[in-house]
């Protein structure tokens, strides 16, 4: 935060924040800093090089990539099966058929993947907060 330079806090046109600090004489509080102002205050390269941060990214990619491949394969199996194996998909179980049941299973697949993602992401949030805490002065 650049508190040493005296500044006019009347929002210059395009004042990137809407919390108009008209008349304020002290420096902007941290929560009002815009992305642009904050950029200069962070050593991005240092955070990126931090081993904990690198581990976090590896964990995320290690989950997101296989999960994305999984749901795409599961999803595209539906048009492939329905398009090229209609006889199989027409097979009835009771009054319903494989085609409908597999389509219906896609909904549950999507919900389950989302639920697993949310659980994992809660862990990433903690890891990210821990990394940021290290760099807070």
């Amino acid at each position, binding site marked *: 935060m650049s508190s040493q330079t005296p500044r006019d806090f009347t929002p210059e046109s395009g004042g990137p924040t809407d919390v108009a600090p008209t008349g304020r004489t002290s420096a902007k509080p941290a929560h009002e800093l815009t992305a642009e102002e904050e950029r200069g205050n962070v050593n991005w390269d240092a955070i990126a090089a931090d081993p904990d941060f690198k581990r976090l990214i590896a964990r995320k990619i290690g989950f997101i990539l296989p999960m994305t491949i999984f749901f795409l394969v599961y999803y595209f199996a539906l048009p492939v099966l329905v398009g090229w194996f209609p006889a199989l998909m027409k097979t009835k179980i*009771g009054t319903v058929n494989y085609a409908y049941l597999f389509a219906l299973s896609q909904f549950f697949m*999507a919900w389950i*993947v989302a639920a697993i993602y949310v659980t994992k992401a809660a862990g990433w949030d903690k890891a990210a907060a821990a990394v940021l805490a290290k760099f807070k002065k």
Partner: protein
Amino acid sequence: MIASVLLAVADSAAPATNPAAIAMFVGFVAATLVITYFSARKSTGSSAYFAAGRRITGWQNGLAVAGDYMSAASFLGIAGMIALSGYDGFLYSVGFLVAYLTVLLLVAEPLRNAGKYTMADVLAYRLSPRPVRAVASLSTITVSTFYMIAQMVGAGGLVKVLLPGISYNVAVCGVGVLMIVYVVFGGMLATTWVQIVKAVLLMSGSVFLSVLVMSRFHFSVSEFFGSLSQITFHKGTAVITADFLTPGMKFKNPLDFISLGMALVFGTAGLPHILIRFYTVPDAKTARSSVVWAMVLIGIFYIMTTFFGFGAASVLGPDFIMKNGGGNMAAPQLARAMGGDIFFAFISAVAFATILAVVAGLTISASTSFAHDFFTNVIHHGKEQKPGEEVRVARITAFVVGAISIGLAIALGPSANVAFLVGLAFAVAASANLPAIVFSIFWKRFNTAGAMAGLIVGLVSSIGIILISPTIMTVDAATVAAAARHLIQRAPIFPLENPGIVSIPLGFLAAIIGTLCSNEPRAEEKFTELVVRANTGLGAEKASTH
């Protein structure tokens, strides 16, 4: 507006005009205008106007995303498609939900962390901002306007059937004026709450309709599905008996299934009006929870299309639907058959609310992109000349976009064949926007040339292929009405309904080739910063404090 609608209704006193329907339409319009009034008082300043102050909560935004997404094309269109084409229509339902995994896993959180108001913010981060924003803005406005015209024509047609006293032109003007009022005065906050109200109405209407349908089958799922195995209908002079659960009634070519699936599952994560919703929440974690809320609602809704789509086929029969307003009227007609005129009126009002909420979302996404990306950042290099200018430009743009859409919808007329515009919106979103977004976030080497190549090739190829596909290029029978005829009367060059299977790989390929053919060290350097921001939320735009 309301007065003119009421006058038109009173004047005509057409036999089928339903007083309950009018009361519900007017009730919904009045409620949304109250919302707009209160939002207008809060919508001062850019972040308040464009992003509702970033103070929308997770469940609220989930409802709003659902309200923004489940368009009349979903509610009326899919119900009609299932009612007339059986199982193939249900594939849309599946794709519309699974698409949210792409949003959740790949796009929502990085977008929220690294952007401000528009999709282009994320691209402009690492890449040369002016050209990238200009093209991204063009793509956003193209997607939004096309999609909006489809909704407006649908709305005009719908009101005309539901309230026979009101002409198509009055209906289109009414919808247009309302959406302009929401967006110009109420900004993102009003749009959000209109979408929330609509989502609640749509969900409750659908649940009620599904329960009524199942009561007809004594709540026995097997009896319900059993009734679908032999449905008889006429096609021309032929009498056909078909099992509506069998795939292939609409699509004959297996590649059609794949192409449609690709456009749906990759398109949603590139739809600008959905993406900007993630800027209305305080942080990435809330963006995540709002996607989950949306997935629950959207999933339940699309599972219910089983009951009211197949239900319409079973209870009403395709012949009855074709004689009474066609596929788009299947859900309202089913409501009338199950719950009488009052329920018909309610479902009609829900459909009307659905259209209004979606067009408001589209208008604000187009006007935000023009004001923020094009006016402020491309023309004025990211600095406003006067305070509040960006919001003022957005308001004027919303007005202009609304006026143009009204004009185009009236010029096209009620029976215009505009269904392809929705498919086009998804195809452009998947082929142009998604490659640029995903590569920006995940690929270090990605650069401006790649983004430009991907955006332009994706945009041009999806529009180009649509033009030579059967949606535009088909020889119609001599009996087809002039306005409903396909635009180009000749055999299609591209055999599939949806361009996705070709245009999506082309968009990604162009982005890769463009990147590899050029070198931009700055874009690679800034990738470090983007990764830290996207994954930690450091420096992300905050919620306003009041």
